[in-house]
C-alpha cells in the first residue's frame, strides 16, 4: 500500500514528462494519455481509500519514506509521504475532480493545436498538488507548493499569444511567490526552533514551547498564514485570482475549485497544532478569512465577466474556509467539508461557464448572454444545481457545509463570535445575490447576443458529451455530497483523528442559525431578482455607485498595487540602473579618468629626449643614494 502513495504522485508526473518531452508524434494521443494517467491516479486513490476505510481509526495513517532529498549536516530533508484522513480527502478530491476536468478538457480543447501540452500541464498540476497534500514534511510540501505555482503559471498563461494571459500568469506566480516567502521563512523558523520541519517532529514539540518560543510559534503561524494568503488568494494577496481567469476555463475550474486555492486551507488545517498553540495567529487567520469572504463577495457582485464573477465567489468561499480553519478545532472539519463540497459545485459552475462560453464564441460578458436555458439544457440544469448548492439551498451540499461554518463562527464565542457570525451571514446574503445575478443574466431574460469581433453570430448549442458528462457528475456531487457527509456526522468522525474537533458553545442555537441563513438567502435572491430579473439587463454596464465601480476594479486593490508596487518598483529599478551606471561604475570610471588625466600630464615628461631621461635616471640614483645614506644614518 505504501508504494501506492508514491505511484499516486508518479502517475501524473510521468504523464507530464511523457507529454512535454514527447514531441509532435504524441499530438494525436496526448490527451488520452494524460486523462488515462489522471484516472489511474484516481484509481490508486480509491484503492487506498478503501484500504483506509478497512482499518482502525488509529492505524489509518500510512507513511512511506522514499529517499533523503537533502542530506546536509543538521538539515535532513526527506522525500516521504504521509497519507492520513486529511490527505486522503484531498487526494480523492484532487484526483476525482481533476480526472473529470481532464475529460472535460478533451472536448473543450479539441480545437487547440497545443492540446497535448495542455494535458501535460494539467498532469503536472495534479502531480504537484498531490505532492503538496501527501508530503510528510514542510520542505517537501514547499516543493509541491511551488510546483503548483509553476503549473498554474503555465496553465493561466497557456494562451501565451495573448499578452493579457501572459501578464496574468506572471502576476499569479509573483504574487504567489510573495506568499512563498512566508512558507520558506516559516520553515526556517521551524528549523531553527525545532531542528526539523517534519510534521512528526514539529507538532509534538509545539506543545513544549515555552516563554519566548511562544512568540516564535506565533511567528510561524503568521508566516504560514502569509503563505496561505498567497496561494488561496486571500486579502491582501488576492489580486492574482481575477486575472487568472485568462486561462482556459478547465484551468479555472481546476485552480479555483478543487485544488490550488484550497492549498492554503490545507496548510492551515495541517498545521493545526501550530495554530492551536498560537491564538494571535488564529485571530489573524479569522480576520483574513472574514475580510476576504466579504471582499470576494462584493467583487463578485460587480463583475460582468462570468468567470470573474465566479472568481470573486471563489475568493469569498475560500474566505469562509480560512475563517473556519482559523476558528480552531471547532472549525477545521467544516473548513475541509466546505472545501470538498465547494470543490464539486464550483468546479461544476466553472465547467458550466466554460460550456456557455464554448457555445457563445468564447464570449465572457454576461450582459451579452441571456435566455440560454433552452439552448443548452444540460448546462442549465447542472449550473443551476451548482448555483443552488453554493447559495446554500436547503438539502444541497452548500447548505450543510456553509451552515456549519456560520454556526462555528458564532460558537467562537464573545464579541469575536458575533462579529464573525454576522460577517458570515452577510456573506451568505451577498452570495445569494451575486449568484442569482449570474444565473439570471446568463440563462434567463431575453437574448442579448452580439456577434464577436469577426462578425460571427453566436449559435448557442449544447456541448459534447465529454464536457457534459463531467458536469453531470459534478452536479451529483453538488447535490448529495453535503448530505452524505452529514449523515451521522460521518465527515466529522472521519477527520477528527487528524484535526481534532470540538463542538464549541454556540450562543445561538443551530435552528436559529439555519433560520437566519434561510432569511438572508431569500433576501439575497429576492434582491437580485428585483434588480436583474424584473427589468431588462442593459447591454452596457451602467455607471453604478461608487462601491460598484470600485468593486469592478477589484476594490481598487490592483490600482494600489500598480501605483505603489509596480510604479514604485519601476522607478526604483530605473534609478538603480542609473545609479549603477553613474555612481558605482562612475566612481571606478572616474578613477580611471583621473589616472588617465594624470598620466596625460605625466607623459609630457616622456619627451623622447634621451638626455631628459638620463636626468631622471640620475635623479633617481641620487634619491636611492640619499635614501641609503639616510637609512644608515638612522
Amino acid at each position, binding site marked *: 500500500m505504501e508504494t501506492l502513495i508514491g505511484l499516486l504522485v508518479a502517475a501524473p508526473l510521468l504523464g507530464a514528462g511523457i507529454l512535454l518531452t514527447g514531441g509532435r508524434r504524441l499530438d494525436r494521443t496526448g490527451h488520452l494519455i494524460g486523462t488515462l494517467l489522471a484516472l489511474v491516479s484516481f484509481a490508486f486513490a480509491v484503492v487506498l481509500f478503501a484500504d483506509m476505510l478497512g482499518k482502525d481509526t488509529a492505524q489509518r495513517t500510512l507513511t512511506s519514506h522514499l529517499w533523503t532529498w537533502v542530506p546536509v549536516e543538521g538539515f535532513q530533508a526527506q522525500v516521504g509521504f504521509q497519507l492520513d484522513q486529511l490527505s486522503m480527502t484531498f487526494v480523492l478530491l484532487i484526483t476525482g475532480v481533476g480526472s473529470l476536468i481532464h475529460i472535460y478538457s478533451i472536448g473543450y480543447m479539441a480545437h487547440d493545436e497545443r492540446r497535448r501540452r495542455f494535458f501535460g500541464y494539467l498532469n503536472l498540476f495534479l502531480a504537484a498538488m498531490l505532492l503538496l497534500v501527501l508530503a510528510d514534511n514542510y520542505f517537501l510540501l514547499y516543493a509541491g507548493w511551488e510546483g503548483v505555482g509553476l503549473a498554474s503559471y503555465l496553465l493561466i498563461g497557456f494562451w501565451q499569444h495573448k499578452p493579457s494571459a501572459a501578464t496574468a500568469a506572471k502576476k499569479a506566480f509573483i504574487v504567489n511567490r510573495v506568499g512563498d516567502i512566508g512558507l520558506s521563512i516559516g520553515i526556517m523558523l521551524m528549523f531553527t526552533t525545532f531542528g526539523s520541519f517534519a510534521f512528526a517532529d514539529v507538532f509534538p514539540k509545539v506543545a513544549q514551547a515555552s516563554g519566548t518560543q511562544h512568540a516564535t510559534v506565533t511567528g510561524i503561524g503568521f508566516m504560514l498564514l502569509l503563505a496561505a494568503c498567497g496561494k488561496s488568494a486571500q486579502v491582501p494577496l488576492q489580486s492574482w485570482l481575477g486575472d487568472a481567469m485568462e486561462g482556459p476555463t478547465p484551468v479555472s475550474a481546476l485552480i479555483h475549485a478543487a485544488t490550488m486555492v484550497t492549498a492554503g486551507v490545507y496548510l492551515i488545517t495541517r498545521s493545526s497544532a501550530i495554530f492551536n498553540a498560537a491564538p494571535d495567529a488564529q485571530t489573524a487567520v479569522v480576520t483574513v478569512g472574514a475580510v476576504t469572504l466579504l471582499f470576494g463577495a462584493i467583487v463578485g457582485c460587480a463583475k460582468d465577466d462570468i468567470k470573474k464573477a465566479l472568481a470573486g465567489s471563489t475568493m469569498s468561499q475560500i474566505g469562509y474556509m480560512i475563517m473556519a480553519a482559523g476558528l480552531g478545532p471547532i472549525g477545521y472539519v467544516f473548513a475541509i467539508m466546505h472545501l470538498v463540497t465547494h470543490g464539486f459545485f464550483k468546479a461544476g459552475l466553472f465547467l458550466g461557464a466554460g460550456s456557455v462560453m464554448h457555445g457563445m464564441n468564447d464570449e465572457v460578458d454576461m450582459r451579452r448572454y441571456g435566455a440560454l436555458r433552452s439552448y443548452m439544457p444540460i448546462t442549465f440544469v447542472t449550473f443551476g444545481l451548482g448555483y443552488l448548492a453554493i447559495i446554500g439551498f436547503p438539502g444541497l451540499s452548500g447548505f450543510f457545509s456553509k451552515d456549519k461554518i456560520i454556526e462555528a463562527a458564532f460558537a467562537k464565542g464573545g464579541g469575536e463570535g458575533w462579529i464573525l457570525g454576522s460577517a458570515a451571514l452577510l456573506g451568505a446574503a451577498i452570495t445569494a445575490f451575486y449568484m442569482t445575478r449570474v444565473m439570471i443574466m446568463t440563462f434567463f431574460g431575453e437574448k442579448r447576443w452580439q456577434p464577436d469581433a469577426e462578425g460571427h453570430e453566436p449559435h448557442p448549442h449544447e456541448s459534447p458529451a465529454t464536457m457534459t458528462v463531467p458536469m453531470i457528475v459534478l452536479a451529483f456531487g453538488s447535490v448529495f455530497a453535503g448530505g452524505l457527509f452529514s449523515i451521522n456526522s460521518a465527515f466529522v468522525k472521519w477527520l477528527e483523528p487528524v484535526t481534532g474537533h470540538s463542538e464549541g458553545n454556540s450562543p445561538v442555537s443551530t435552528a436559529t442559525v439555519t433560520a437566519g441563513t434561510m432569511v438572508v438567502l431569500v433576501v439575497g435572491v429576492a434582491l437580485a431578482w428585483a434588480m436583474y430579473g424584473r427589468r431588462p439587463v442593459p447591454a452596457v454596464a451602467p455607471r453604478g455607485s461608487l462601491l460598484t465601480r470600485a468593486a469592478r476594479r477589484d476594490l481598487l486593490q490592483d490600482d494600489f498595487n500598480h501605483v505603489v508596487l509596480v510604479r514604485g518598483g519601476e522607478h526604483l529599478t530605473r534609478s538603480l540602473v542609473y545609479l549603477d551606471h553613474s555612481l558605482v561604475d562612475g566612481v571606478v570610471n572616474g578613477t580611471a579618468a583621473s589616472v588617465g588625466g594624470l598620466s596625460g600630464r605625466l607623459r609630457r615628461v616622456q*619627451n623622447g*629626449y634621451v*638626455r*631628459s631621461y638620463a*636626468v631622471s635616471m*640620475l*635623479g633617481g*640614483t*641620487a634619491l636611492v*643614494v*640619499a635614501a*641609503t*645614506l639616510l637609512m*644608515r644614518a638612522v
Partner: protein
Amino acid sequence: MMSLAASASQTSTGEAVQFWVLGTVAVLGALGTVLMKKAVHSALSLAGTMIVLAVFYLAQGAYFLGVVQIVVYTGAIMMLFLFVVMLVGITAADSLKETLKGQRWWAAICGIGFGVLLIAGIANASLHTFTGTGAANSAQGGNVPGLARLLFTTYVWAFELTGALLITAAIGAMVLTHRERTEERRTQRELAEARVREGTQVTPLPAPGTYARHNAVDIPGLLPDGTISEASVSSTLRERGQIRDVSRDALRRLAELDQRSEEWLERRGVAGASRWEPGRRKGLPGAGSGDDPADPADPAEHAADHAEEGAK
C-alpha cells in the same frame, strides 16, 4: 711606492704629490671632455684623463690594469672614437647651447646633488686605514699571476661570458654598420640603358679645370659661351660651395687678350668688341669669384699662358 705596509693609514709623500698634481690634470681632462666644443678635443682630453688614471692604477699596485688601461683604453678605444669622429665629420662641431627646457637646471641639481651625496657617502664611511696590494700581489708571485689565478678560478664563468659578450659585440658592430644590398647589382649595360631612358647626361661629363693654372678639380670647366659647366665638378664640392668660379676672370682676361692682340696687330675689329662684352650677358653664377683673392694675378704668368694660347 712599491713596498706598501700591510696596514697603513698614509701613503708615501711621493704618491701624494703625484696624486695632487695628476689628479688636477685628470679633473681638467674630464672637464675638457665635457666642455670642449669639438669632439676631437673632447676625445683628446679624455685620453689625457685616462693616461692619468693609468698612472694611478700603477701607483696603487694594479700594474696589469695600468698597462691594460693604456693599451686598451687609451690605445684602442680612444682611437676608435677618433676614427668615428673622423667618419662622422671632424667639422661637425656641436654647439653647447641648450635646447631642452630646464635640462641644464635639472642636470645641475641632479649632478651636484649626486656628487655631494657620493662624496658625503665616502666621507661618511670610516676608511682610515688600508691594507695595500703588496701582500696580495706577492702571494701569487706578482700582480699578473694573482689576477690570472682569480680570473681562471673564481671568475672563470664570468670570464667566459665576457668572451662571449665580446664576440657578440664584434659581430653586432659588423651587422650594424654593414649595409645590406637590397637589390641585384645592376650591370653596366643596365645602367647605360637606364641613363638613356631617364634622359640624363649620356655622354661623359665635361672635364673640369679648363683654367689650368690651378688644381683643376674644383674649378668648373667653361662652356663655349664662357659660362661654367656645373656638371664638370664633383657634386660634393658643389654642395660644400667649394667651387671656384673663374668664368668672369676668364672672360676679362680673354677680353684683355683680344685687346692686346689687336694692339699688337694694330687693327680694330668691330665684331670682337661687342662679342665679348660681359655686361650684356645674363646673370652668371658665382659672380663674386671673379675677384678671388686666392688668385693672385701674376702678369708675367698670365702673359706667358696667353702667349701660348695665342700661338695656337
